[in-house]
């Protein structure tokens, strides 16, 4: 009898063209997503006189450098990068969802939206948040520029097989507790490097109950625990999301795909290298206070005191983060005054995220400046059709054009030095949103509540 396999094993085995003695495999890559920041890789293959082997499996988007205000890109270097991806798309003949395209948006939003992302595929991109696509039961991970060049030229990648970690979440999430709160709680539990060298499979009833958008939020932040990838087994919700999308299989191909996809979930007896379990019903609205993702705490908690840390090194680390964040030891998270709010990113820039923020903001005024950026043009259009844009602008927030925006600040949307930002993005690192920026990560509903209160606040105060 064949040994029981994990979802990850099944996809890995189906894509290993050959495997060396040390376990390093040459993997076939089904989908390659590129963006305007992938220019180093295109320069590398141009330098070597190489072509894109499979332009039909290569998809481009402009996201990191596009402005959130309408009109052309003011910065000449950024504009040059966008012209560069346009020129490479024309030269190599791949589909680019660039400026002016009705499909344009963040690469991790447009992939699923256009049906480019499917269960059972290998998918890579020169961006660490490629783990997002694992929400469909794909093996998806971020790579650097040299590996992007390798995939462009060969449609393959050499990889040492990571270990498998299953994160099981039992119970049900409480009211106003979102996928963002759940993944922040997971990272706090396993640590910012807790999944290094591992592919995470998220399982259990609380995961199964999540929408596809929420599953993408969870898988997106796998990299913030150091995970090579994050995956969720495909099910009826996955198939329903995929069906009918532009690049997804149709008719008999779709029927054949469903048969193949139903065989993907991990076998009941499959063995994982590590297992972690969490109680989903115990997760509260969660906020980060420091500059690593493992500083996530329930909003009802206080920031730590370096003097009561387990050891001197931990105390020093806490003290340095408190100093950067401008926080005194033992400060209650609930009530920390904030300067600005950002709602968007590949983590929380999808329609459900905007609906969650709008639910809190409807009929209320924000007392802070804030920017709301849809993850793609289709998300923006859908939000506008539902009147969400008016909810945001009536509350006093700015409604921007789709892209990565203030998550990385590469397009000029930055948080000023010393400013404190409540952000639905994925990283709270030193200087992430601009030099000297102070980031508190939270869910869209929590960010909206913070915009209204002017300080970090528990969204559960805002009604049922």
């Amino acid at each position: 009898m064949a040994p029981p396999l994990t979802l990850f094993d099944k996809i890995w085995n189906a894509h290993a063209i050959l495997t060396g003695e040390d376990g390093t495999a040459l993997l076939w890559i089904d989908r390659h997503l590129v963006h305007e920041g992938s220019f180093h890789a295109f320069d590398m293959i141009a330098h070597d006189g190489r072509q894109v082997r499979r332009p039909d499996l290569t998809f481009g988007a402009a996201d990191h450098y596009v402005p959130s205000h309408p009109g052309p890109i003011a910065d000449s270097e950024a504009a040059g990068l966008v012209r560069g991806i346009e020129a490479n798309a024309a030269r190599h003949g791949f589909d680019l969802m660039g400026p002016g395209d009705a499909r344009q948006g963040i690469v991790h939003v447009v992939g699923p939206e256009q049906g480019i992302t499917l269960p059972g595929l290998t998918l890579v991109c020169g961006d660490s948040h490629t783990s997002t696509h694992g929400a469909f039961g794909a093996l998806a991970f971020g790579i650097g520029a040299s590996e992007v060049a390798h995939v462009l030229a060969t449609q393959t990648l050499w990889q040492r097989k990571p270990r498998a970690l299953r994160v099981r979440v039992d119970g049900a999430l409480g009211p106003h507790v979102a996928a963002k709160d759940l993944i922040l709680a997971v990272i706090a539990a396993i640590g910012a490097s807790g999944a290094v060298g591992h592919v995470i499979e998220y399982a259990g009833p609380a995961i199964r109950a999540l929408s596809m958008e929420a599953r993408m939020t969870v898988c997106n932040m796998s990299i913030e625990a150091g995970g090579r990838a994050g995956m969720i087994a495909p099910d009826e919700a996955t198939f329903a999301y995929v069906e009918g999308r532009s690049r997804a299989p149709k008719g008999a191909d779709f029927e054949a795909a469903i048969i193949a996809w139903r065989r993907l979930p991990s076998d009941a007896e499959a063995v994982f290298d590590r297992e972690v379990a969490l109680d989903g019903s115990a997760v509260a609205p969660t906020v980060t206070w420091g500059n690593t993702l493992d500083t996530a705490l329930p909003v009802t908690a206080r920031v730590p005191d370096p003097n009561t840390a387990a050891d001197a090194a931990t105390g020093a680390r806490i003290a340095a983060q408190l100093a950067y964040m401008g926080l005194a030891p033992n400060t209650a998270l609930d009530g920390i005054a904030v300067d600005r709010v950002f709602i968007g990113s590949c983590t929380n820039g999808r329609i459900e995220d905007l609906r969650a923020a709008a639910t809190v903001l409807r009929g209320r005024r924000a007392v802070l400046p804030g920017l709301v950026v849809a993850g793609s043009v289709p998300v923006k259009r859908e939000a506008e059709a539902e009147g969400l844009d008016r909810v945001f602008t009536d509350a006093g927030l700015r409604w921007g054009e789709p892209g990565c925006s203030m998550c990385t600040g590469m397009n000029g949307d930055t948080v000023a030095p010393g400013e404190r930002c409540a952000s639905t993005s994925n990283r709270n690192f030193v200087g992430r949103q601009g030099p000297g920026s102070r980031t508190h990560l939270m869910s869209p509903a929590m960010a909206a509540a913070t915009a209204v209160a002017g300080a970090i606040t528990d969204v559960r105060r805002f009604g049922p």
Partner: protein
Amino acid sequence: MTPFTVLRAPAVILDRANVDTDQIIPARFLRKPRGGGYNQFLFHDVRDAEPGFPLAATDNPPILIAGANFGCGSSREGAVYALADAGVRCVIAPSFGDIFAANAAKNGVLTIALPPGDIAALIEAVGRGAELTVDLPLERVRPDNGAAIGFAIDAFRKTCLIDGLDDIGLTLAHADAIAAFEAGDRAARGWAVPDTP
């Protein structure tokens, strides 16, 4: 890429955990072309904020001893370009961000993961003025007048580093296997071909 075999050199110590690639090179410099002297961006904002920060834009010791989870976060290969352009050829730490470690190998920079106890011994030796000899073929690192410490590295990554190989060229030596897989896969998984709208 420059081959890596044996390196005897002084080391610089950055004893802090979770040094992310946003710190190693801030996002606003990633738009620069590869020829742009990435060393000037190395820890750009951290160096501004912390006088006496152990790494500089130039003249760094070729070996960096760092804290756990070094190079976590973003996949930006610019983090490796900045280190390499600033003279760093080898980084020793308890653990690394996976993408950073892969990027390093592609640029001739060796990453060595060692248990914290071994790292402490190396830091102690460097503190008394010892240089380190990193021997990739023998998979060991030894401080002057100290005991050798073994390390592990994937055979494939090791070969590429020692030979300074362009691994696209190496992969294309398997062109027949790739083409055979491609043809078989196309027949078996018609659904995996993107639909044309």
